[in-house]
Protein backbone atom coordinates (compact mmCIF):
# COMPACT_ATOMS: atom_id res chain seq x y z
CA UNK A 1 0.00 0.00 0.00
CA UNK A 2 0.99 3.56 -0.52
CA UNK A 3 1.23 4.13 3.21
CA UNK A 4 4.12 1.73 3.69
CA UNK A 5 5.84 2.98 0.55
CA UNK A 6 5.84 6.47 1.91
CA UNK A 7 7.37 5.29 5.13
CA UNK A 8 10.11 3.54 3.24
CA UNK A 9 10.80 6.61 1.21
CA UNK A 10 11.18 8.72 4.28
CA UNK A 11 13.38 6.12 5.79
CA UNK A 12 15.66 5.95 2.78
CA UNK A 13 15.80 9.67 2.59
CA UNK A 14 16.70 9.65 6.22
CA UNK A 15 19.51 7.13 5.78
CA UNK A 16 20.97 9.26 3.05
CA UNK A 17 21.04 12.42 5.05
CA UNK A 18 20.96 11.25 8.58
CA UNK A 19 24.56 10.74 9.59
CA UNK A 20 24.56 13.81 11.81
CA UNK A 21 21.31 12.87 13.44
CA UNK A 22 22.43 9.31 14.06
CA UNK A 23 25.01 10.70 16.40
CA UNK A 24 22.29 12.13 18.54
CA UNK A 25 20.95 8.65 19.19
CA UNK A 26 24.02 7.54 21.00
CA UNK A 27 24.21 10.78 22.91
CA UNK A 28 20.82 10.30 24.44
CA UNK A 29 19.82 6.67 24.42
CA UNK A 30 17.44 7.02 27.34
CA UNK A 31 15.20 9.44 25.47
CA UNK A 32 14.56 6.88 22.77
CA UNK A 33 12.17 4.81 24.79
CA UNK A 34 9.88 7.73 25.45
CA UNK A 35 7.13 8.14 22.91
CA UNK A 36 8.54 5.47 20.65
CA UNK A 37 5.24 3.61 20.45
CA UNK A 38 2.99 6.50 19.55
CA UNK A 39 5.09 8.68 17.30
CA UNK A 40 3.90 8.94 13.73
CA UNK A 41 5.29 10.66 10.69
CA UNK A 42 3.59 13.99 9.93
CA UNK A 43 2.52 12.89 6.47
CA UNK A 44 0.92 9.70 7.76
CA UNK A 45 -2.77 9.61 8.65
CA UNK A 46 -3.86 8.59 12.13
CA UNK A 47 -3.95 4.82 12.34
CA UNK A 48 -6.59 2.57 13.87
CA UNK A 49 -3.76 0.48 15.34
CA UNK A 50 -3.60 3.17 17.99
CA UNK A 51 -6.37 4.09 20.37
CA UNK A 52 -5.69 7.14 22.43
CA UNK A 53 -7.05 7.08 25.93
CA UNK A 54 -6.75 8.63 29.33
CA UNK A 55 -6.75 7.22 32.83
CA UNK A 56 -7.73 9.41 35.74
CA UNK A 57 -6.80 8.20 39.21
CA UNK A 58 -9.41 9.83 41.42
CA UNK A 59 -7.53 8.76 44.55
CA UNK A 60 -4.81 11.22 43.59
CA UNK A 61 -7.21 13.97 42.53
CA UNK A 62 -7.49 16.76 45.13
CA UNK A 63 -10.78 18.37 46.01
CA UNK A 64 -10.65 22.03 45.08
CA UNK A 65 -7.64 21.64 42.79
CA UNK A 66 -8.40 23.07 39.38
CA UNK A 67 -5.00 22.78 37.69
CA UNK A 68 -6.12 20.54 34.84
CA UNK A 69 -8.97 22.90 33.98
CA UNK A 70 -6.73 25.97 34.03
CA UNK A 71 -4.10 24.21 31.92
CA UNK A 72 -6.73 23.29 29.33
CA UNK A 73 -7.98 26.87 29.25
CA UNK A 74 -4.48 28.23 28.68
CA UNK A 75 -3.64 25.62 26.08
CA UNK A 76 -6.83 25.86 24.05
CA UNK A 77 -7.90 29.44 24.69
CA UNK A 78 -11.31 29.12 26.33
CA UNK A 79 -12.79 30.36 29.60
CA UNK A 80 -10.71 31.70 32.44
CA UNK A 81 -10.54 35.25 33.65
CA UNK A 82 -9.73 36.72 30.24
CA UNK A 83 -12.32 34.61 28.45
CA UNK A 84 -12.93 35.70 24.87
CA UNK A 85 -16.62 34.96 25.38
CA UNK A 86 -17.29 38.43 26.69
CA UNK A 87 -21.05 38.65 26.24
CA UNK A 88 -22.11 35.15 27.18
CA UNK A 89 -23.61 34.54 30.61
CA UNK A 90 -21.81 32.03 32.85
CA UNK A 91 -24.40 29.43 31.78
CA UNK A 92 -23.57 30.15 28.15
CA UNK A 93 -19.77 29.96 28.36
CA UNK A 94 -18.03 26.93 26.93
CA UNK A 95 -16.35 24.42 29.24
CA UNK A 96 -14.21 21.70 27.75
CA UNK A 97 -13.28 20.17 31.07
CA UNK A 98 -14.76 20.64 34.55
CA UNK A 99 -14.11 19.37 38.03
CA UNK A 100 -17.04 17.45 39.52
CA UNK A 101 -17.34 16.93 43.27
CA UNK A 102 -19.07 13.69 44.25
CA UNK A 103 -20.70 12.68 47.49
CA UNK A 104 -22.06 9.18 47.96
CA UNK A 105 -25.58 9.72 49.25
CA UNK A 106 -25.65 6.59 51.41
CA UNK A 107 -22.13 6.68 52.87
CA UNK A 108 -21.13 10.34 52.71
CA UNK A 109 -17.84 9.46 50.98
CA UNK A 110 -16.60 12.40 48.90
CA UNK A 111 -14.49 12.45 45.77
CA UNK A 112 -13.33 14.91 43.16
CA UNK A 113 -12.60 14.25 39.52
CA UNK A 114 -12.35 15.99 36.14
CA UNK A 115 -14.95 15.23 33.45
CA UNK A 116 -14.45 16.01 29.79
CA UNK A 117 -15.17 14.34 26.45
CA UNK A 118 -14.82 10.63 27.14
CA UNK A 119 -13.74 9.83 23.56
CA UNK A 120 -16.14 6.92 23.20
CA UNK A 121 -15.58 4.08 20.83
CA UNK A 122 -19.29 4.34 19.94
CA UNK A 123 -19.90 8.05 20.40
CA UNK A 124 -23.59 9.11 20.43
CA UNK A 125 -22.55 12.58 19.22
CA UNK A 126 -21.13 11.06 16.05
CA UNK A 127 -24.23 8.92 15.50
CA UNK A 128 -26.66 11.81 15.76
CA UNK A 129 -24.72 14.48 13.83
CA UNK A 130 -26.63 15.15 10.61
CA UNK A 131 -23.63 16.42 8.65
CA UNK A 132 -20.76 14.17 9.85
CA UNK A 133 -19.18 17.19 11.52
CA UNK A 134 -19.02 15.28 14.77
CA UNK A 135 -16.46 12.61 14.03
CA UNK A 136 -14.11 10.03 15.47
CA UNK A 137 -10.61 9.84 14.11
CA UNK A 138 -9.06 6.46 13.28
CA UNK A 139 -7.03 6.62 16.50
CA UNK A 140 -10.12 7.12 18.65
CA UNK A 141 -10.02 10.89 19.17
CA UNK A 142 -13.52 12.39 18.95
CA UNK A 143 -13.55 15.80 17.29
CA UNK A 144 -15.87 18.41 15.80
CA UNK A 145 -15.13 19.33 12.19
CA UNK A 146 -16.16 22.97 12.44
CA UNK A 147 -16.08 23.26 8.67
CA UNK A 148 -19.18 21.08 8.57
CA UNK A 149 -20.84 22.01 11.86
CA UNK A 150 -24.14 23.84 11.29
CA UNK A 151 -24.74 24.45 14.99
CA UNK A 152 -27.86 22.29 15.42
CA UNK A 153 -26.73 21.17 18.91
CA UNK A 154 -28.15 17.67 18.57
CA UNK A 155 -24.78 16.26 19.72
CA UNK A 156 -25.15 18.25 22.93
CA UNK A 157 -28.52 16.62 23.47
CA UNK A 158 -27.07 13.18 22.81
CA UNK A 159 -23.87 13.34 24.86
CA UNK A 160 -24.30 11.52 28.20
CA UNK A 161 -21.39 13.47 29.71
CA UNK A 162 -22.35 17.07 28.87
CA UNK A 163 -18.95 17.26 27.24
CA UNK A 164 -19.99 19.47 24.35
CA UNK A 165 -20.28 23.25 24.41
CA UNK A 166 -21.81 25.67 21.95
CA UNK A 167 -20.14 28.99 21.20
CA UNK A 168 -22.75 31.71 21.69
CA UNK A 169 -20.88 34.71 20.25
CA UNK A 170 -18.18 35.88 17.85
CA UNK A 171 -14.67 35.16 19.09
CA UNK A 172 -11.26 36.65 18.51
CA UNK A 173 -7.82 35.76 19.85
CA UNK A 174 -8.13 32.04 19.35
CA UNK A 175 -5.05 29.86 19.75
CA UNK A 176 -3.43 29.05 16.41
CA UNK A 177 -3.72 25.30 17.06
CA UNK A 178 -7.23 25.42 18.56
CA UNK A 179 -9.73 27.11 16.25
CA UNK A 180 -13.12 27.88 17.78
CA UNK A 181 -15.91 30.21 16.76
CA UNK A 182 -19.48 31.42 16.89
CA UNK A 183 -22.29 29.04 16.07
CA UNK A 184 -20.27 25.84 16.25
CA UNK A 185 -20.09 23.12 18.86
CA UNK A 186 -16.79 22.17 20.49
CA UNK A 187 -15.30 19.93 23.13
CA UNK A 188 -12.12 18.41 24.51
CA UNK A 189 -10.00 17.21 21.59
CA UNK A 190 -7.54 15.23 23.72
CA UNK A 191 -4.95 17.89 22.77
CA UNK A 192 -4.79 16.27 19.37
CA UNK A 193 -2.23 18.82 18.19
CA UNK A 194 0.10 17.59 20.91
CA UNK A 195 -0.56 13.92 20.18
CA UNK A 196 0.05 14.47 16.47
CA UNK A 197 3.30 16.23 17.26
CA UNK A 198 4.36 13.08 19.08
CA UNK A 199 4.30 14.57 22.54
CA UNK A 200 2.12 11.78 23.90
CA UNK A 201 0.63 14.04 26.57
CA UNK A 202 -2.21 16.50 27.01
CA UNK A 203 -2.19 19.89 28.70
CA UNK A 204 -4.19 18.52 31.62
CA UNK A 205 -2.00 15.45 32.12
CA UNK A 206 1.15 17.59 32.20
CA UNK A 207 -0.40 20.08 34.60
CA UNK A 208 -1.40 17.55 37.23
CA UNK A 209 1.27 17.69 39.94
CA UNK A 210 -0.14 14.56 41.59
CA UNK A 211 0.21 12.57 38.38
CA UNK A 212 -3.45 11.63 38.45
CA UNK A 213 -3.84 11.78 34.66
CA UNK A 214 -2.12 9.29 32.36
CA UNK A 215 -2.41 9.55 28.58
CA UNK A 216 -1.42 6.82 26.18
CA UNK A 217 -2.24 4.19 23.60
CA UNK A 218 -4.79 1.72 24.96
CA UNK A 219 -3.92 -0.73 22.19
CA UNK A 220 -0.24 -0.88 23.05
CA UNK A 221 0.20 -3.50 25.76
CA UNK A 222 3.51 -2.01 26.84
CA UNK A 223 2.22 1.53 27.32
CA UNK A 224 1.94 2.79 30.86
CA UNK A 225 -1.77 3.33 30.55
CA UNK A 226 -2.40 -0.20 29.27
CA UNK A 227 -0.33 -1.61 32.12
CA UNK A 228 -2.27 0.38 34.69
CA UNK A 229 -5.59 -0.62 33.19
CA UNK A 230 -4.50 -4.24 33.27
CA UNK A 231 -3.33 -4.20 36.87
CA UNK A 232 -6.03 -2.08 38.51
CA UNK A 233 -9.77 -2.01 38.63
CA UNK A 234 -11.01 0.93 36.54
CA UNK A 235 -14.42 2.29 35.64
CA UNK A 236 -16.13 4.01 32.75
CA UNK A 237 -18.71 6.66 33.57
CA UNK A 238 -22.12 5.34 32.56
CA UNK A 239 -20.65 2.04 31.42
CA UNK A 240 -24.26 0.81 31.14
CA UNK A 241 -24.59 2.69 27.86
CA UNK A 242 -21.97 0.45 26.26
CA UNK A 243 -20.05 3.32 24.68
CA UNK A 244 -16.61 1.96 25.59
CA UNK A 245 -15.09 5.25 26.58
CA UNK A 246 -11.45 6.09 25.97
CA UNK A 247 -11.30 7.95 29.28
CA UNK A 248 -11.26 5.64 32.30
CA UNK A 249 -11.39 6.34 36.02
CA UNK A 250 -9.73 4.61 38.91
CA UNK A 251 -11.24 4.80 42.38
CA UNK A 252 -14.93 5.48 41.64
Amino acid at each position, binding site marked *: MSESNQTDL*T*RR*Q*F*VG*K*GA*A*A*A*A*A*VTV*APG*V*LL*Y*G*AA*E*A*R*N*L*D*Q*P*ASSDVRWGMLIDTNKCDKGCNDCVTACQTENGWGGENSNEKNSSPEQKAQWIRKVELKDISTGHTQSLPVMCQHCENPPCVDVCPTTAS*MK*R*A*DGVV*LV*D*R*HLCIGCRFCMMACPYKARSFVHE*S*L*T*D*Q*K*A*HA*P*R*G*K*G*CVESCNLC*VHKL*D*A*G*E*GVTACSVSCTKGAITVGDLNDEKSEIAQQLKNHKTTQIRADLGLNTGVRYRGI
Partner: protein
Amino acid sequence: MKPVRKLLGLLSAALLLTMLVPNAIAEVGPIIPKAIKGKQCVEDTSEMRRNHMDYLKKHRVEALRHGVRTKQYSLKECLECHVPAKGTETSAENGQFCKNCHVFVGVKLDCFDCHATQPEPLDAKAAKLHPFATPAMKALGRIDQPHSAIVMNRLATEKREAE
Protein backbone atom coordinates in the same frame (compact mmCIF):
# COMPACT_ATOMS: atom_id res chain seq x y z
CA MET B 1 -29.54 56.78 -37.57
CA LYS B 2 -29.87 54.17 -34.90
CA PRO B 3 -26.63 52.23 -35.51
CA VAL B 4 -24.68 55.47 -35.50
CA ARG B 5 -26.05 56.49 -32.16
CA LYS B 6 -25.31 53.07 -30.76
CA LEU B 7 -21.73 53.23 -32.00
CA LEU B 8 -21.26 56.69 -30.54
CA GLY B 9 -22.60 55.49 -27.24
CA LEU B 10 -20.23 52.55 -27.19
CA LEU B 11 -17.29 54.74 -28.07
CA SER B 12 -17.92 57.22 -25.32
CA ALA B 13 -18.41 54.42 -22.83
CA ALA B 14 -15.10 52.87 -23.86
CA LEU B 15 -13.39 56.21 -23.54
CA LEU B 16 -14.78 56.72 -20.11
CA LEU B 17 -13.60 53.30 -19.05
CA THR B 18 -10.04 53.79 -20.29
CA MET B 19 -9.88 57.07 -18.46
CA LEU B 20 -11.29 55.90 -15.18
CA VAL B 21 -10.29 52.33 -14.64
CA PRO B 22 -6.51 52.43 -14.27
CA ASN B 23 -6.74 55.23 -11.76
CA ALA B 24 -9.43 53.45 -9.85
CA ILE B 25 -7.38 50.29 -9.57
CA ALA B 26 -4.28 52.12 -8.55
CA GLU B 27 -6.08 53.91 -5.78
CA VAL B 28 -8.46 51.29 -4.48
CA GLY B 29 -6.37 48.14 -4.80
CA PRO B 30 -5.93 46.03 -1.68
CA ILE B 31 -2.90 46.47 0.52
CA ILE B 32 -0.94 43.25 0.26
CA PRO B 33 1.63 43.11 3.05
CA LYS B 34 4.95 41.55 2.07
CA ALA B 35 5.63 38.03 3.28
CA ILE B 36 7.64 38.03 6.47
CA LYS B 37 9.65 34.90 5.77
CA GLY B 38 10.89 33.52 2.47
CA LYS B 39 10.58 34.74 -1.11
CA GLN B 40 8.64 31.93 -2.72
CA CYS B 41 5.24 30.58 -1.76
CA VAL B 42 4.53 26.83 -1.67
CA GLU B 43 3.30 27.08 -5.27
CA ASP B 44 3.73 29.77 -7.93
CA THR B 45 2.21 33.05 -6.88
CA SER B 46 -0.19 33.08 -9.83
CA GLU B 47 -1.31 29.56 -8.95
CA MET B 48 -1.79 30.48 -5.31
CA ARG B 49 -3.75 33.60 -6.18
CA ARG B 50 -6.23 31.58 -8.18
CA ASN B 51 -6.36 28.28 -6.37
CA HIS B 52 -5.25 28.73 -2.76
CA MET B 53 -8.72 27.78 -1.55
CA ASP B 54 -8.53 24.39 -3.21
CA TYR B 55 -5.20 23.59 -1.59
CA LEU B 56 -6.49 24.75 1.77
CA LYS B 57 -9.72 22.81 1.48
CA LYS B 58 -7.97 19.60 0.52
CA HIS B 59 -5.52 19.98 3.34
CA ARG B 60 -8.13 20.80 5.95
CA VAL B 61 -9.93 17.49 5.32
CA GLU B 62 -6.70 15.50 5.53
CA ALA B 63 -5.41 17.32 8.56
CA LEU B 64 -8.55 17.43 10.65
CA ARG B 65 -10.32 14.23 9.70
CA HIS B 66 -7.33 12.00 9.04
CA GLY B 67 -4.60 13.54 11.14
CA VAL B 68 -2.15 14.23 8.30
CA ARG B 69 -0.14 17.09 9.71
CA THR B 70 2.06 18.17 6.82
CA LYS B 71 2.64 21.88 6.81
CA GLN B 72 2.87 22.79 3.14
CA TYR B 73 -0.77 23.75 2.59
CA SER B 74 -1.83 24.38 6.15
CA LEU B 75 -3.59 27.66 6.89
CA LYS B 76 -1.52 27.99 10.03
CA GLU B 77 1.64 27.92 7.90
CA CYS B 78 0.23 30.54 5.50
CA LEU B 79 -0.11 32.86 8.44
CA GLU B 80 3.40 32.04 9.66
CA CYS B 81 4.79 33.70 6.52
CA HIS B 82 2.17 36.25 5.64
CA VAL B 83 1.04 37.64 8.98
CA PRO B 84 3.12 39.05 11.85
CA ALA B 85 2.90 37.09 15.08
CA LYS B 86 0.59 38.05 17.95
CA GLY B 87 1.97 40.95 19.94
CA THR B 88 3.87 42.40 16.98
CA GLU B 89 3.30 46.15 16.94
CA THR B 90 3.13 46.74 13.20
CA SER B 91 0.44 44.19 12.56
CA ALA B 92 -2.50 46.56 12.93
CA GLU B 93 -1.47 49.09 10.27
CA ASN B 94 -1.29 46.94 7.18
CA GLY B 95 -4.36 44.93 8.02
CA GLN B 96 -4.35 41.21 7.56
CA PHE B 97 -3.02 39.56 4.42
CA CYS B 98 -6.03 37.34 3.77
CA LYS B 99 -8.68 39.80 4.87
CA ASN B 100 -7.36 42.75 2.86
CA CYS B 101 -7.80 40.94 -0.41
CA HIS B 102 -11.04 39.23 0.47
CA VAL B 103 -12.63 42.49 1.52
CA PHE B 104 -11.45 44.11 -1.70
CA VAL B 105 -12.91 41.46 -3.99
CA GLY B 106 -15.97 41.05 -1.80
CA VAL B 107 -15.60 37.33 -1.18
CA LYS B 108 -16.80 36.17 2.22
CA LEU B 109 -13.93 34.81 4.28
CA ASP B 110 -15.15 32.17 6.68
CA CYS B 111 -11.81 30.83 7.98
CA PHE B 112 -11.27 33.43 10.67
CA ASP B 113 -14.63 32.98 12.33
CA CYS B 114 -12.80 30.13 14.06
CA HIS B 115 -9.11 30.26 13.11
CA ALA B 116 -6.64 32.64 14.71
CA THR B 117 -5.76 35.54 12.41
CA GLN B 118 -2.16 35.69 13.61
CA PRO B 119 0.55 33.14 14.43
CA GLU B 120 1.51 32.51 18.03
CA PRO B 121 4.31 34.76 19.33
CA LEU B 122 7.83 33.61 18.50
CA ASP B 123 9.05 33.09 22.05
CA ALA B 124 6.15 30.74 22.77
CA LYS B 125 7.16 28.65 19.77
CA ALA B 126 10.83 28.66 20.65
CA ALA B 127 10.06 27.33 24.11
CA LYS B 128 8.38 24.32 22.56
CA LEU B 129 11.34 23.35 20.38
CA HIS B 130 13.25 20.42 21.72
CA PRO B 131 17.03 20.78 21.43
CA PHE B 132 17.36 17.33 19.89
CA ALA B 133 14.99 18.22 17.07
CA THR B 134 17.33 20.54 15.25
CA PRO B 135 19.82 18.17 13.60
CA ALA B 136 17.13 15.65 12.81
CA MET B 137 14.95 18.32 11.29
CA LYS B 138 17.64 19.09 8.81
CA ALA B 139 18.12 15.43 8.12
CA LEU B 140 14.48 14.91 7.32
CA GLY B 141 14.51 17.76 4.84
CA ARG B 142 10.98 18.15 3.52
CA ILE B 143 9.31 17.85 6.88
CA ASP B 144 10.14 20.87 8.93
CA GLN B 145 9.92 21.05 12.68
CA PRO B 146 8.69 17.61 13.71
CA HIS B 147 8.52 17.00 17.39
CA SER B 148 11.50 15.40 19.02
CA ALA B 149 9.65 12.19 19.82
CA ILE B 150 9.03 11.50 16.15
CA VAL B 151 12.63 12.05 15.33
CA MET B 152 13.74 9.88 18.20
CA ASN B 153 11.40 7.15 17.12
CA ARG B 154 12.77 7.27 13.60
CA LEU B 155 16.31 7.20 14.94
CA ALA B 156 15.51 4.22 17.11
CA THR B 157 14.08 2.31 14.17
CA GLU B 158 17.11 3.04 12.06
CA LYS B 159 19.41 1.95 14.81
CA ARG B 160 17.54 -1.29 15.31
CA GLU B 161 17.64 -1.98 11.58
CA ALA B 162 21.33 -1.20 11.41
CA GLU B 163 22.08 -3.69 14.16
